[in-house]
């Protein structure tokens, strides 16, 4: 079975994660961040997937529905959305996500599967889990962590977990990436273990009271459990701050990375909407861009990722930007290095320039 844990660090990306979890951030035109992990699980044969939410659930629940688009609208297993339990008697809101796991232990006990893959949503990859499963079972380890060896782009994974491995790929400890070393083993925060091991980690963690987060409870057990690691070498990106969000979208304007992410091991599924074909008028000038359906493009678009239903009027110029759904960019508006959240309206003649490396973020529903 699969578990996607949505309690993620959102401080550095709050411009677009203020009112939605990272998992629900629109990305690559028509997707949301969670689509990648969810699709990877389904493509790996997992048919019982639980999403442990952590608040701000409206958009993610609206997006996931009953899981039908990921083939998870099933009688046996399928998609479950498990929200934190809020007792009216509780005056203090507890920190962390371990409470939520404890409150949903029933779900874990009742699931039929023997193994569980616990993941986050913010690590984007197109990964075939089957070799990792085989490796885990064969090695007899208690927990297998999927990781990627990084040589160069370590600054993109600042604050991500790093693994200290011995020669046999056993995990001796877990640290954090400060961005100061050339070579790191970055954890994808994807853990394969027996369901019973997970239940034990949760229960022991609550019993000891030494962890507010599942991750902490897991780390506290590294010494007494047999934990190894499995290497992954395909496309990876993490959506934990605005810069990474911007870079990931822009990277997809290249055929190679785009092919790796969208096509390597399986299709990436997402919620399907009945959008019309995108119409280019006779004044449209579009180059090097990813354009979703439902748009009407009359202006100039260069190096952009454009979401669904966006209207760009004649004479508007949009460059190096990410435009989310239903934005309206009026005539002669001029945007460069901008990130527009959903439903933004940019009126005539408005100019908004961010900088390379420092894009200008405009919040949802704003009218400029």
């Amino acid at each position, binding site marked *: 079975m699969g578990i996607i844990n949505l309690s993620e660090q959102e401080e550095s990306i709050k411009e677009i994660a203020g009112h939605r979890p990272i998992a629900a951030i629109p990305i*690559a*035109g*028509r*997707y949301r961040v969670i689509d990648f992990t969810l699709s990877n699980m389904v493509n790996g044969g997992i048919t019982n997937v639980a999403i442990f939410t952590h608040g701000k659930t409206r958009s993610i629940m609206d997006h996931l529905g009953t899981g039908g*688009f990921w083939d998870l609208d099933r009688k046996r297993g399928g998609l479950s959305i498990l929200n934190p339990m809020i007792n009216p008697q509780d005056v203090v809101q507890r920190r962390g996500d371990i409470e939520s796991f404890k409150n949903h232990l029933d779900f874990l006990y009742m699931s039929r599967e023997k193994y569980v893959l616990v993941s986050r949503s913010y690590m984007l990859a197109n990964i075939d889990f089957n070799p990792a499963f085989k490796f885990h079972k064969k090695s007899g380890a208690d927990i297998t962590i999927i990781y990627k060896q990084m040589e160069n782009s370590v600054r993109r994974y600042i604050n991500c977990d790093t693994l200290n491995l011995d020669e046999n790929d056993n995990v001796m400890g877990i640290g954090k990436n400060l961005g100061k070393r050339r070579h790191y083993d970055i954890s994808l925060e994807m853990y394969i273990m027996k369901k019973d091991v997970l239940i034990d980690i949760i229960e022991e963690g609550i019993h000891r009271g030494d962890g507010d987060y599942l991750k902490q409870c897991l780390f506290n057990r590294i010494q007494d459990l047999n934990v190894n690691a499995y290497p992954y070498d395909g496309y990876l990106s993490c959506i934990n701050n605005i810069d990474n969000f911007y870079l990931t979208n822009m990277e997809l*304007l290249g*055929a190679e990375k*785009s092919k790796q992410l*969208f096509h390597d091991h399986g*299709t*990436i*599924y*997402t919620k*399907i*909407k*009945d*959008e*019309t*074909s*995108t*119409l*280019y*008028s*006779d*004044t*449209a*000038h*579009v*180059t*090097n*861009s*990813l*354009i*979703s*359906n439902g748009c*009407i493009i*009359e202006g100039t678009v260069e190096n952009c*990722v*454009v979401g669904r239903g966006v209207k760009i009027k004649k004479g508007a110029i949009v460059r190096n930007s990410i435009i989310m759904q239903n934005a309206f960019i009026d005539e002669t508006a001029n945007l460069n290095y901008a990130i527009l959240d959903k439903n933004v309206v940019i009126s005539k003649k408005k100019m908004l320039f961010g900088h390379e490396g420092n894009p200008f973020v405009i919040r949802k529903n704003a009218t400029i």
Partner: protein
Amino acid sequence: MRNRKKEMVAMILAGGQGSRLKELTIRNAKPAVPFGGKYRIIDFALSNCSNSGIDTVGILTQYQPLVLNTHVGIGSPWDLDRREGGVKILPPYMGMDGGRWFRGTANAIYENIHFIDAYDPEYVLLLSGDHIYKMDYSKMLEFHKEKDSQLTVSVIEVPWDECYRFGILNTDEEKRIVEFEEKPENAKSNLASMGIYIFNWKLLRQALIEDEADDKSSNDFGKNIIPKIIDGGRNVFAYVFEDYWKDVGTVQSLWDANMDLLKLDNGLNLYDKSWRIYSVNPMSPPHFVGSNAIIESSLVNEGCVIEGEVYNSVISPDVRVGKHAIIRDSVILPNAVIEDYAEVNRTIVMGNSVIKAGIKVGKKDGDILLYNDESKDTLSFE
């Protein structure tokens, strides 16, 4: 006892070949022919039903139904996967007294009287599955009820010099139908039948039974049932429809209708979110436009990779247009590949076709060509 009664049941005639669409219908029924990039022709009738509040639709199939059946499925894309009613595919079938193919449009409905009876409707809406239009049938029903009509025929004004191509209805000032003329030389009216009818079910039911018993009848709605009802002194009215409507029965008219979509303020206006046209949508990434690509006055869909030049054309999902390739005034169906330096003019390129590097297809003026890559299975139904 569950109440299955419906006010109006729709029946869509989707059994014809549409032979004037040539290779597009060799192994595909006309209503399942791709249109407008991401649709199939029947999406319009189905979406209209759903948006009009009609939740029970029978689709009569006969000719090459595989693509159509796969596309329609259980009707979920059009909100027609319902507990009671919903969409039902109705093929010819074997019974205790043997089996037979449908002999005509009226015969097809006759063989499915039991289907309609199950819902005990007051009215039956008869549609064809091969027109492109948006219409609220509930308004037509309101008109039908107001006029106390027993048969209402939806009509559209056509240019006077085109009347000879249509079934023309002559009406009085109250829109009562006084005469029906099939393809008249000297038309007395320019109101053409759109092939959309609302019948009182009791009347239609009786007419079908009588028609079936008539050996000399060709069991066709247009030739037999309709004229008989009109001549029979019943309350028959014409409902004038004034919006965009196109019968895409020929390669030329299919191309024309596709081209109509390229104008920003075209008559069909698919951008009206209050009347969406639903379809089976592809699960593909957004389309990618390359650094040297040029796209003007065109429609493009998901999954495409456009690296060449596209002018005045409709590009369906998952099409690849190579570098320096040029596409003009054409319709490219799903999954086709136009390789580098190839050129396509005024052509409908069938799905999955590959136009190899440097090859030129079609001419800049002249008739619309239908390009069928014989080496490929151009029928994609999954």
